[in-house]
């Protein structure tokens, strides 16, 4: 490549910073331009390495991610551009690093707010090494049909609207990155399009200046004419004035400096760009426009006529036969992103998930339609939250009170029960909290804790079928099924279970109706008549009262059956008992208990003899 050309159709870049959208936009531009290769060869991100997946037209490709610029450059020596998305804090060291690498010739610095001294140093180093810096505080540059830096040019439809997917003949340089898009539009509407457009950035001391780029365009035979968009502040436009005067610029130059309004602000106004403030009369836009005009540039009377002047100048060149307008062509069609198509209502796709209990997409999570702040402020409590998330129902106070009572009652039943025992053994084997908890929870089932569901199911079934309590006992016996929720190892009629007493008392005092509990107690009368420890136990009582609660809340019989079937009632036991299990696990860890080994003398070894298994 000649030294006056920074980019062409084969230019490839390293991107510093994991800017996924900018990367995709560059590749979409490449594709529309019908480039043979993607313009990005690698990404550098100090915090990760690996691969980045992105689109090349309709297909997916992967780009390598490295943690250092040096490594990326060594593996991809063909890349001579680095697009530096580092923040204003680290843009300076990263750019220095890139300038030290022989294969990198151009660094574009996007960040705004880099100290002026740093940029001046970088510019001086680049000058010494014959390298280029574009920026800082810029969106970058674009070369029609060839290469674009980062986000330059906006979305792909805008790039195509400005015909940037193919080269034109007009080269321009501007300070403002925000106006670069507008210039693309103006140039494309008033000529054969953009050959190359550069935004050098709004700082007082940009890494490369107007004159650097204008002289490149002057040398480049493919640039037929030049457009300059300067602004108030600084004196860089005077380099152009001098070059015009000394005949170094011979190509047609249309120029305009923005900020002519600054003279209205008597106290001196700082416009958006760091460099956009006139400190002397020479730095005003008016003085610069006047000087440019006197030196021979085509200067409109206002920005309003900029397009017209470009058109006049371009048409004149065509007429004089000095430039042959570059042809138009259709861009290679880039498929639309699904997300864009959805936003614009162009496609529809079925979802793969449904959720009917929460929505976390807004300002705050919604529990069954109730904002979290309301849940907290209105004192829903754990019972209320369970009501919302498990049953999508706002429970009355007596209902949430019942759930919280159950959770307290089932929270623990000592270290000897099999679930707690398993949790303890796992904790002592050095397993973490979650593994130990799960080990305990996995014990819960038909024989341990699982009777709540069963009790609810069977008592409800017989009650709803209007069977007499005696019939229930007999039918179950005939089926050879022990009635879940009936019977206790030690408690009996004369030695009642305190927990069951608490639950019954609560229900009697608070529940609107207790049809199922009444039915279950009638059944208990039958069973305790047979043996006095065949009492309604805590699991049974919880299950039955739960049915009573749902019944009182107006759930239909079928809905209640569905809830039982989902295992929600057992869930209450699992939730409550997890508190106890975790207590045991933390206790064991605090005590630094060693691995448990069961003693031999507590095991009956009764293996068969070898001959017996033949």
């Amino acid at each position, binding site marked *: 490549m000649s030294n006056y050309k920074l980019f062409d159709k084969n230019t490839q870049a390293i991107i510093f910073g994991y800017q996924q959208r900018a990367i995709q936009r560059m590749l979409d531009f490449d594709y529309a331009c019908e480039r043979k290769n993607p313009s990005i060869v690698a990404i550098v991100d100090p915090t990760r390495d690996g691969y980045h997946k992105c689109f090349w037209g309709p297909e997916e490709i992967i780009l390598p991610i490295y943690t250092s610029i040096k490594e990326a450059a060594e593996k991809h020596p063909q890349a001579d551009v680095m697009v530096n998305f580092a923040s204003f804090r680290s843009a300076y060291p990263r750019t220095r690093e890139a300038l030290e690498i022989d294969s990198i010739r151009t660094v574009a610095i996007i960040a705004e*707010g880099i100290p002026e001294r740093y940029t001046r140093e970088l510019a001086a180093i680049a000058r010494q090494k014959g390298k280029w810096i574009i920026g800082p505080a810029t969106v970058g540059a674009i070369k029609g049909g060839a290469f674009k830096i980062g986000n330059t040019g906006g*979305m792909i439809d805008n790039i195509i609207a400005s015909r940037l997917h193919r080269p034109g003949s007009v080269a321009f340089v501007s300070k403002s990155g*925000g106006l670069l898009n*507008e210039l693309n539009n103006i140039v494309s509407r008033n000529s054969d399009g953009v050959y190359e457009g550069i935004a050098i950035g*709004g700082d007082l001391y940009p890494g490369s*200046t107007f004159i650097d780029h204008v002289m490149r365009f002057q040398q480049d035979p493919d640039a037929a004419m030049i457009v300059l968009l300067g602004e108030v502040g600084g004196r860089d436009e005077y380099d152009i004035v001098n070059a015009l005067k000394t005949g170094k610029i011979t190509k047609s130059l249309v120029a305009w400096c923005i900020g002519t309004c600054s003279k209205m602000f008597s106290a001196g106004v700082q*416009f*958006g760009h760091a460099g956009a403030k006139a400190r002397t009369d020479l730095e005003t836009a008016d003085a610069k426009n006047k000087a440019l005009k006197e030196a021979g540039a085509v200067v409109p009377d*206002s920005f309003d006529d900029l397009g017209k002047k470009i058109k006049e100048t371009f048409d004149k060149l065509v007429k004089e036969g000095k430039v042959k307008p570059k042809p138009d062509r259709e861009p290679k069609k880039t498929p639309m992103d699904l997300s864009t198509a959805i936003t614009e209502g162009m496609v529809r796709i079925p979802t793969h998930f449904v959720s009917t209990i929460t929505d976390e997409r807004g300002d705050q999570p919604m529990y069954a339609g109730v904002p979290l702040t309301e849940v907290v402020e209105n004192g829903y409590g754990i019972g209320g939250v369970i009501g919302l998330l498990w049953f999508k129902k706002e429970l009355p106070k007596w209902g949430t009170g019942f759930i919280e009572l159950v959770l307290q009652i089932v929270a623990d039943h000592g270290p000897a029960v099999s679930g707690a025992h398993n949790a303890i053994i796992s904790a002592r084997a050095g397993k973490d909290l979650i593994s130990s908890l799960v080990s305990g929870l996995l014990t819960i089932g038909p024989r341990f804790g699982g009777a709540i569901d069963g009790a609810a199911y069977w008592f409800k079934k017989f009650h709803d079928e209007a069977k007499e309590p005696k019939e229930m006992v007999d039918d179950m016996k005939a089926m050879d099924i022990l009635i879940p929720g009936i019977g206790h190892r030690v408690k009996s009629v004369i030695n009642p279970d305190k927990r069951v007493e608490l639950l019954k008392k609560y229900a009697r005092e608070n529940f609107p109706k207790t049809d199922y509990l009444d039915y279950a107690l009638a059944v208990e009368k039958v069973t305790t008549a047979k043996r006095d420890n065949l009492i309604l136990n805590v699991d049974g009582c919880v299950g039955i009262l739960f049915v009573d609660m749902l019944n009182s809340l107006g759930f239909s019989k079928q809905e209640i059956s569905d809830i039982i079937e989902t295992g929600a009632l057992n869930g209450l036991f699992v939730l409550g008992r997890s508190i106890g299990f975790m207590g045991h696990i933390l206790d064991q860890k605090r005590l630094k208990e060693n691995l448990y080994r069961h003693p031999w003398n507590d095991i009956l070894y009764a293996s068969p003899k070898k001959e017996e298994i033949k």
Partner: protein
Amino acid sequence: MAQRGIREFHGKKMMANYWTEYLPNLAKYDGKIVLVDPKTDMNELAKQNPWLKQEKLVVKPDQLIGKRGKNNLILLNSTFDEAKKWLNKRMNKDVTIGKVTDKLTHFLIEPFIPHDKNKEYYVAITSNREGDAIYFSAHGGVDIESVWDTVVTIQVPILSSINNIKIAEKLPKEVPEEEKAMVAEFIKGLFKFYVDFGYAYLEINPIAMTKEAFIPLDTVARLDDTAQFVCGNKWGNIEFPAPFGRRLTKEEKFVKDLDEKSGASLKLTVINPSGRVWTLVAGGGASVVYTDTVFDLGFKDELANYGEYSGNPSTDETYQYTKTILDLMTREKNPKGKILIIGGGIANFTDVAKTFTGIIKALKEYKQQLIDNKVRIYVRRGGPNYQEGLKNMKDLGKILGVPIEVFGPEAHMTSIVSMALKGNAGA
């Protein structure tokens, strides 16, 4: 984010605090100086700074005002009581310098230093693209432009060190031979201070040279505020005062607060509240161009404001911003009617429809006032989702009761300005 002036008080304090680090061999400038604002309790100040009552004083405003001597704003060689009286007369009072009028709110007081008038030097450091330039003259204490031929310039290229420059050899011949080493040492130290502290401009005129000390008498300084993250901790608790003459109206203050709270940028300067042409423009560059164009087309007396919104403001922010402008522009009726220019370039990534939502909401709210004030609205914008944004604006035009003309990228960015103004020239 740019070069910004700091108070003389802060500049001198900074020098005093770091003097021994940079100028270990020269007698320390003690930094005896206080800042007085409308809330200062003068008696308390005197208690904490006994020198105020023991020494003769200098008092002057400290609000980024140049040429204070010429404008009779310096009190020299006074007692504390005289200083108090002088301050009382001026505090919170308007003063006009050139074309600019503003209220005096900050003054500095420091000891009056009797010294040899012939030992008033001029030293300044500025930055340029290639490096930093030191300016020195033995003829300080006067308007330096009038004695510019006595100034020597020492350019220090950006990648080189001042240690490699033989400063003493470059000093003007008016500096006595035996003092050259000391002056050179001072310049070297000051230069290093300038570089390390992120200065972009530092002028001391004059600096008084006594037997073994240098005392800055009058200092002007600008810092590169982007260097905050590098040397902000050395700056201490400084502020960047607004330029003298930039008095914010209630509405400007409101927008400034909005801007400071937001990640986006929202700016408003009211130029002429009775002006008929109001702008509501997206983008820093575009807003300047629109304002220029109103100006360049010869309507500078009609231009009411400069302002811009950019950096993807939220719907509420654009709503608040628009409301502020609509409120201002509908206060005072004009028989010729008014013009609102809702302009902007082709956005890179800002969702145009989204930003227009807040603008449309405010316009609807001001429907009656807009009709009463005979407002005509011109819209031009491009960028992501602009079609929908423009359609929403056109739909609004059907119900708003005032004319809205809507254009996209097919129209030149500023064409709506000439359209609005030319259509209006005869009215």
